[in-house]
């Protein structure tokens, strides 16, 4: 019997000056090799949950462990085995794509030929190799999104977290990202991602957890088997009221 690679228990995050907690007693377990989607309306707490699980933010209470390692105890070790794709284009725009990959790759423990080969492989895979010497600021949104993703794949993480990885990009770039995510998941990488795109979640995820008001309010296993019903389930669980 396999053991969860991610375990979240009773997670609470209360921002100062906020009336209600952003995360309010979240429990979650993710099994190895899963492709888990965290879906929820605006302000549901998806980004906060991912930020805490990856060690960007401290929880008010609750515990998070990755492969059995508590994130609050040994974040350094956890950071060796996870990859994180932030919602923003988290790149140095004044640097070239290759310089960005070299910088982040060295932080991730890669160097020399190994780093160069891995960067080339990912650049090639996402159609960016020919323009790797250009500064990122001169690139389109779709190209930046693809680079934003492959930075997190440099060290071949066991678990990949993505926060809205396909926001505001063209269809071709989105398709390329989907394809790449499918591939890396197929090689055994656990993927956890947040999105608004229900169709995207249906196509990619092996399981979807619906979040609202900072906690899991429902779950859909194998959403591809229930194609077209995810939206109905989502609205039933989160309501039809408009969100800020």
């Amino acid at each position, binding site marked *: 019997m396999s053991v969860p690679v991610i375990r979240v228990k009773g997670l609470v995050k209360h921002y100062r000056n906020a009336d209600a907690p952003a995360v309010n007693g979240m429990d979650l377990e993710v099994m190895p090799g899963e492709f888990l989607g965290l879906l929820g309306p605006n302000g549901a707490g998806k980004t906060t949950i991912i930020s805490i699980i990856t060690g960007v933010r401290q929880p008010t209470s609750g515990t998070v462990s990755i492969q059995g390692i508590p994130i609050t105890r040994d974040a350094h070790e956890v950071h060796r085995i996870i990859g*994180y794709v932030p919602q923003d284009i988290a790149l140095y725009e004044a640097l070239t794509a290759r310089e960005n990959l070299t*910088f982040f790759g*060295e932080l*991730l*423990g890669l*160097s020399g030929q190994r780093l160069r080969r891995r960067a080339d492989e990912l650049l090639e895979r996402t159609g960016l190799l020919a323009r790797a010497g250009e500064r990122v600021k001169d690139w389109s949104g779709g190209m930046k999104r693809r680079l934003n993703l492959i930075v997190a794949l440099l060290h071949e993480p066991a678990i990949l977290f993505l926060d809205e990885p396909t926001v505001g990009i063209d269809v071709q770039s989105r398709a390329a990202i989907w394809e790449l995510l499918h591939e890396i998941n197929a090689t055994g990488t656990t993927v956890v991602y947040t999105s608004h795109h229900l169709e995207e979640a249906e196509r990619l995820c092996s399981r979807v957890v619906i979040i609202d008001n900072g906690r899991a309010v429902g779950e859909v296993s194998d959403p591809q088997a229930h194609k077209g019903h995810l939206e109905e389930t989502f609205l039933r669980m989160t309501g039809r009221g408009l969100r800020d």
Partner: protein
Amino acid sequence: MLRRIIAHIRKELLLLVRDRAGLALLYVMPIVLVSIMAVVQDAPFRDFADKQVKVLFRDLDGGVVGEKVRAGMDIAGSFTITDAGTLNEAEIKEEVRKGHHQVAVIVPAGASKVLLDRSAHAMDGLFGQITGDSVAPIEPDSAFVRMIVDPTVKHAFRELSRGALIRILAGLSSEQLLVDMHARMEAITGDTLEPLKLMAPFIGVDQRLAAGETSGVLIASDSTQHNVPAWTIFAMFFTVVMLAGNMVKERNSGCMARLLTMPGGVAERILGRAVAYLFICVTQLGVLLAMGHWVLPVWGLPALVLGPAKDLALLLLAAVFISGAATSFGVLVGSFARTQQQSAILGSSVVVIMSAIGGIWVPLYIMPQGMQMIGRFSPLNWSMEAFNVILLRQGDLGELVLYLLPLAGFSVLCLAITVVAERIASSN
């Protein structure tokens, strides 16, 4: 860990090199500032040794007093004298009021006669006691050389002119007394006495600098010796604007969130930045010292006097501490500012204020007492004093440490506040 720190250093340097406006701010701005300020402050720093004060001279006396005052002011070397020709006092006053001349000196008519009369009267009093001759009871009138001053002229200029006139007139009176005394002695003895030899002052002033010689040159604070280190320090601290701006950009772009999910902690990031900015600060120091040494003399300014290799090593050491203080302050500003505009305004304003009170623009010793007290708490003042210890006072490491320790303390304080603030922000 070392590899990660090197990665941070390389990234910071690449970001700086790619930012042309930033590079201009870090290198061109201090070059321009040093050039302008050294030229502008050259005159005040020369201590009026050159012909600085423009004097309009009117001799209504036409005698020895007018002649000697004119000659004495010429010899003093601090005045550029223009003859007023036939202008009357009102016209002379108007010339000064308009600022055409800073000072006017009018030797009144009959001044020479007054000099002779007063001296003769003094001799009558002295020799009357020997010969038994009676002395006229009424003392002759005094004469006054009139000095008219432009109201915009600094106190130091006024005092310089007044002091020179007092010195000349006192010398003239003494000289006349001796001449008269000689004549009276001849009259009493009936002999022809040796002419009186007017010697140099019995007790003179021998001015020396408390510092030793550097490369065979006695160095004192001049425009170059002040402005080159001063604006180098300013430039080193101005890296705060770039550093804090890049930090804010890093945070707002999401790069910081990514960094927080990668191996390596805050210490590695800060160390990477500190080393990158140390490199910038040391190159700024090199560029500006070279400029002071080789370029400023081409423009007629004093050359920056650099000491032996030991002094250069101390300068490098001081640069490390100054750069550390600047970087730590930049990190502090960068962690508190929410936008790049905030970081630019906050960083530059505080550096400008700390430089103004810290003796960068003008030396601390010419500020009012209260400002001097405040200025001694500015890290830029500690930096300036550290450079002065090396460049002017030829001090040793022991003296230098007195200024490096507060800089180190300031760095630690800034970093401690940053770490605490970031922990609070992360837990919020």
